[in-house]
């Protein structure tokens, strides 16, 4: 049964090519970024994501990065679970005061973990709409 069903559901790969085709790849800036990241990060990157006050929209879209269309792991990028070794952590959205201590403790336990990432600008901008609240820390750590 599973076989027949999976055959029915199977089709040509849905996975899409990475954004920005040949033109961008040949640009000097792309080469600089690529070489820099290869030097500091190597060929793979483990990311540990902690929800410290997001609306959960971020989590949904991070999950989506692993679906058949985007398949982030083929680029050596992997969102890791707790027990796995990791090199980078990314917080989501504004950081609530209730989560701050837990987040800091989590970072300390994973000494050497680098914080931040591409989504930092988004985190800062959403943090701005919640910054006035008694329950949200004013700055990201």
């Amino acid at each position, binding site marked *: 049964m599973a076989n027949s069903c999976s055959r029915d559901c199977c089709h040509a790969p849905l996975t899409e090519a990475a954004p920005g085709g040949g033109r961008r790849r040949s640009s000097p800036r792309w080469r600089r970024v690529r070489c820099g990241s290869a030097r500091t990060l190597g060929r793979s990157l483990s990311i540990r994501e902690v929800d410290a006050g997001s609306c959960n929209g971020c989590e949904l879209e991070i999950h989506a990065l692993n679906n058949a269309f985007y398949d982030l792991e083929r680029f050596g990028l992997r969102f890791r679970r707790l027990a796995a070794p990791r090199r980078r952590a990314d917080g989501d959205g504004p950081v609530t005061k*209730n989560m701050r201590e837990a987040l800091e403790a989590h970072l300390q336990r994973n000494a050497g973990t680098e914080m931040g990432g591409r989504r930092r600008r988004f985190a800062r901008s959403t943090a701005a709409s919640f910054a006035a609240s008694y329950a949200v820390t004013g700055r990201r750590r």
Partner: protein
Amino acid sequence: MPTRIAMIEGQRVEQHRPWPRVVTNENGWGVATDALAAGDWTLLGLWGETDAVHMAVRDHDSGEIAVVTLPCPAGTFPSVGARHPPALRLERAIGSLFGLQATGSPDTRPWLDLGFWGVAHPLAKQTGAPPAPTSYDFLPVEGEGLHQIPVGPVHAGIIEPGHFRFTANGETVARLEQRLGYVHKGIEGLMAGAPLDKAAKLAGRTSGDSTVAYSLAFAHAVEAALEIMVPPRAIYLRALMAELERLANHFGDIGAICNDASFSIMHAQCGILRELTLRAADTCFGHRLMMDGVVPGGIARDLAGGGTGAIAALLAEARRTFPKLVELYDNTASLMDRTATTGIVRPELVRQFGAGGYVGRGSGRAFDARKNVAYPPYGELAFEVAVLEAGDVNARVWVRVREVEQSLGLIEQILGRLADGPIQAKVEPRGEPSEGQVREGLGLVEAFRGELLVWVRIDGDRVERCHLRDPSWFQWPLLEVVDRRQHRRRLPALQQVVQLLVFRPRSLR
């Protein structure tokens, strides 16, 4: 014969719409508590203000909805939770946020306030100094050979925070207690005094997976308060957004539940359907989650040019693949072994707590705000509400499967009835604008997780007070009493019992 709700003594508030609000005394509050404890009414919400507490209730038989208010000048009110346990956490939240104490409550520990805010009772008229740090007393468990397993707030995987305290003897869990509120952002505090457009944005950012439902419930409350007539095209497009959101979440969650039961092909295939739904939403409304699409008065963006085609393609693909996935789910014995008879929630508890969505309908509670409140346009659309009795994970999956099928039909009907016209009404009070006139409204909307309540009081063009009650408030407590006998050998990890396989509820904001 006047119904029991109409018999609550007190002053009817004229500017509260669409359901009545009565300002009562302790006597009337007691009568309402009696009706809740007797099971005649369901508690829809219980929230505070600086000097009053409100409860929203629904009569089982007549379906009437009302808000009962008790002024509490002395800072106390008779506990509802003492006799009706679903109110307990809501009362504790009122205590933490407003400093109003529920007298006679068996549980006076703080809720949401974990001691990090640097202020006590942040929404009270007079905020207090931060309380001295104390340890939180988890409920005592007695017995031999018990040990505690603390889990969270930071979890494995990309999920929301929450703390779970398991007390276990070996693999037998004697008690599970939750401590939530880690992502409490004080949204209701930020809404106080905010202009309507800013408040609408905050409402839409309360929960990303239900952003359409939150925006819709807020819009309903504002429109009720200001007596705004929403144009028909906007009403239908709102329903289209709501059904797309429901589809996307059900697809994602059905896959995730199977994944937690170690059956990943369903996860991958459902992930494709979810992605297609989000892309269709993006094509139609310019945002994958349709955030800020619904605004008070109508919708922000009309259906884009290629929208109808994108939805037709989505419907065709879902109708083609989803039945096969359902068949696969139904015919995989190893998967069934993990979902059937797992995580049984007893029907009487679901009724008592008024748990909504698939949690309620999987345990025999036939309530769906789209049907029972029948807010437009659902009164004009044909759909069925799936109700199952078994109360296990399998029943909840099947409720979702049926809801996917109904949503596909609803979307088709919506597109068929979509007429041209304006999409936005002017957001201003009907009639002569008078200075300082306060208006109040209540919105009740069926989010994918259950019914969502928003209550708002508007002063001029600003929100004076707004309360948003997520369906999870009445689902989380049930997780503590879920039948755990079956879990031991069937589930990969304790945490997945909690977070994923059983309900997939929401962290409390």
